[in-house]
């Protein structure tokens, strides 16, 4: 006894994370509905932007398709972070800490839940996007890469959610970070290409904002096809966020588990 493999522990915790998410229809519906609502509103309301000279496509629908994927990843991360904080507040975390659970298994289990939700969101949004008329220039292969990048982004955001949860142990603190994340997303090239942002300060912020490169990586697969530079930057920043966030979460966890 006490010899559970890391894989067994991660699988048990991932199952728990997924089961509890699936048993909260409100969470699933919000995670699927709100990003698509924003997408629909943006795509119809800002369609005229595609007439701006230099705009990379004549379909704002194609341009905006990265938005629900990035926003959904954020939803998933906040949900997972809040769940972890709730576990800390309720004492469930202590219960788990009293088992021979490896801290990294807890993180792995939680992030597996994030990945599962990210995967579901990616597939659902892709399907709805195609039904709405989004044209994926990179074809079927590109769709897989879009889902892969979305999952990576979800994983990175999930790591940030975990850091907040572990550091604060407060559901309120995690949930109150949501608007801040939202602002960071809007301060990127999510609504306009960087070269068309007129305000210098906004263009500067969008250029140093890693979210811009995640968005542009996904967008390139939709609009351009296979753009090695955009993909390298997109995957590069996504991986960097994953490494930093999960590393930070693991380090934070070590301070909480004696």
């Amino acid at each position, binding site marked *: *006894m*006490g*010899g*559970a*493999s890391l894989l*067994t*522990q991660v*699988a*048990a*915790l991932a*199952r*728990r994370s997924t*089961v*509890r998410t699936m*048993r*909260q229809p409100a969470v699933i519906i919000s995670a699927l509905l709100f990003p698509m609502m924003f997408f629909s509103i943006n795509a119809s309301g800002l369609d005229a932007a595609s007439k701006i000279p230099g705009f990379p496509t004549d379909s704002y629908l194609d341009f905006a398709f990265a938005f629900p994927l990035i926003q959904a990843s954020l939803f998933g991360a906040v949900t997972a972070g809040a769940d972890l904080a709730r*576990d800390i507040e*309720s*004492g*469930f*975390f*202590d*219960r*788990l*800490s*009293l*088992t*021979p*659970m490896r801290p990294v*298994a807890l993180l792995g289990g939680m992030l597996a839940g994030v990945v599962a939700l990210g995967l579901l969101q990616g597939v659902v949004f892709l399907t709805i996007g195609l039904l709405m008329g989004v044209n994926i220039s990179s074809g079927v292969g590109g769709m897989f890469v879009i889902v892969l990048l979305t999952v990576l982004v979800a994983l990175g955001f999930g790591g940030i959610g975990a850091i907040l949860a572990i550091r604060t142990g407060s559901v309120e603190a995690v949930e109150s970070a949501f608007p801040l994340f939202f602002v960071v997303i809007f301060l990127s090239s999510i609504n306009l290409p960087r070269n068309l942002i007129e305000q210098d300060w906004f263009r500067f912020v969008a250029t140093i904002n890693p979210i811009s490169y995640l968005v542009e990586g996904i967008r390139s697969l939709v609009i351009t096809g296979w753009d090695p530079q955009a993909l390298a930057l997109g995957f590069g920043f996504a991986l960097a966020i994953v490494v930093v966030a999960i590393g930070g979460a693991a380090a934070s966890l070590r301070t909480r588990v*004696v």
Partner: protein
Amino acid sequence: MGQERGIEVEGLVREFKKGPRAVDGIDLRVEPGEVYGFLGPNGAGKSTTVLMLTTLLPPSGGTATVAGYDIVHEGPQVRASIGAALQEAALDPFLTGREHLHLQAALHGLSRKERRRRGQELLERVGLEEAADRKVRGYSGGMKRRLDLALALVHSPRILFLDEPTTGLDPQSRSALWAEVSRLAREDGVTVFLTTQYLEEADVLADRVGIIDRGKIVAEDTPEALKAEIGRPSVEATPAGTSDRDAVASVLGQFGEEIPAQPGAVAVRLTGGAAGLADVVRALDREDVRVANLRLDEPSLDDVFLEKTGRSLEGAAEDEDGEMEEAQ
């Protein structure tokens, strides 16, 4: 090796910022197979001690070993040896009772087959087989407590920590939990460290009792020895009429010193022990003093607490709560 060791604590201290020492240099020793009752009012330091002994809170000073392992330097070994049901039954409302047991069993490294077998066995033992596949959010307080106990037992620990396991439970659930704790100790030889604020619980379950107040252990022994230390029983008489009170007090005063009693009643600690009750009855009869009720009380653990701290356990709980709120 570790399985034959109980709990040994020396000078254990826990300080919190802006507050008094929650645990102030306690020493205690719990033998293997013993049920140790840790009795004290709210805020006395019981739960803080449990958190330290279960490795969930680092001590500020002192040393302790659980199952032979140091709580600071050998946390994983301590955790592998113990089961714990902490003050709040921390459960996931979206999982079923059975899913909780399977998760806990998986983390402890039980095989799939063993998880199912052990889960079913524990569900039956705590009387939750019918509710096993219902989500925990629909459980009553008693059901949650029983599931909590089952979860603490998944890996058959040799040492079990129960932090106020019956607080808030109805009498029936409380009795069921007492029966299971007794069975674990008597039949399975599990060492039990039980914190409680209920005198009766400590009296019924514990082989030995440590009484903690304001972070310090003020008395420790078997319940019988602690009560014997106080010694003599008391007799309480309720006069038949209010005009008889002085006469009753006068007669009873011949048999011992007066102690606090129920409103309208008179009580004395019997100098000659329980055998003096017959003399009290004869004296009341001889003086033609009528009483509505006459009761002999053996010393209780509350008397012990009163003797050691100058306060009754119930009153102390209110005092300590006030102090804790101020400290926070």
